[in-house]
């Protein structure tokens, strides 16, 4: 997918575990793992907001556009 979620990078920067973030934002570890692996279908603004508050970051720190092979050719 062209949108990559850098949740693992931000967690490492803040020295926070996924379980700790899960308890803070009220989203299950399973859902955060799916998000971390960029396997989710969509992300709610409320989720993004909660993660940004917990990790003291901007949405741009979490989401990144990396064009895949077909998009690079365009």
């Amino acid at each position, binding site marked *: 997918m062209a949108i990559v979620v850098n949740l693992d990078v931000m967690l490492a920067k803040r020295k926070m575990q996924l379980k700790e973030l899960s308890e803070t934002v009220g989203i299950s570890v399973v859902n955060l793992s799916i998000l971390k692996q960029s396997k989710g279908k*969509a992300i709610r603004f409320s989720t993004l907001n909660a993660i940004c508050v917990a990790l003291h970051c901007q949405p741009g720190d979490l989401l990144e556009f990396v064009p895949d092979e077909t998009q690079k050719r365009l």
Partner: protein
Amino acid sequence: MKHKLPFLISISCFLLYKLLQYSTGNRYIALLVFLIPITVLLINMILRKKLRYKSWFLSKHSFFLEKKSSTFTSAISKELLFQKLQEVTKSSSFRLVDSNSKSSELLLTTAANFWTWGENLYIEIKEGEKETSLVNVTAVTIYGSYSWNRNHKNYQHFYESFQQSLTI
């Protein structure tokens, strides 16, 4: 209505028994005609809650049960998907009655109501190609060779619940 169902069934069975007894003149034949399907129903109701009896319901010899199998692919890994589907079940109308983490299998049931004795959903997760997972869902009736499209609706409901849960 749900609480009146056992009463209505009892009355119907008694009336049918009397009718058969009257027409055949033999009460043992009439009893036997009832005992066979009632026994099958009772056995199915007991066995439906355990994954180990999966083969009983999914066997091709179980012609008296309607089965519908469907498969979908997911990009989520097998282990994570096993946990995810358990979460999906909790937020849906299905009831998770049994699971096996080793074989990545789940057993979901639907509740009985006036129209149905309930259905089972057997879910099996397998590893697919290129880090994907294959989810095989088999919906089966507990009693009856025709589900009145309930098997298909159950699968659709489960699949939609899963897709919706991917919006995090």
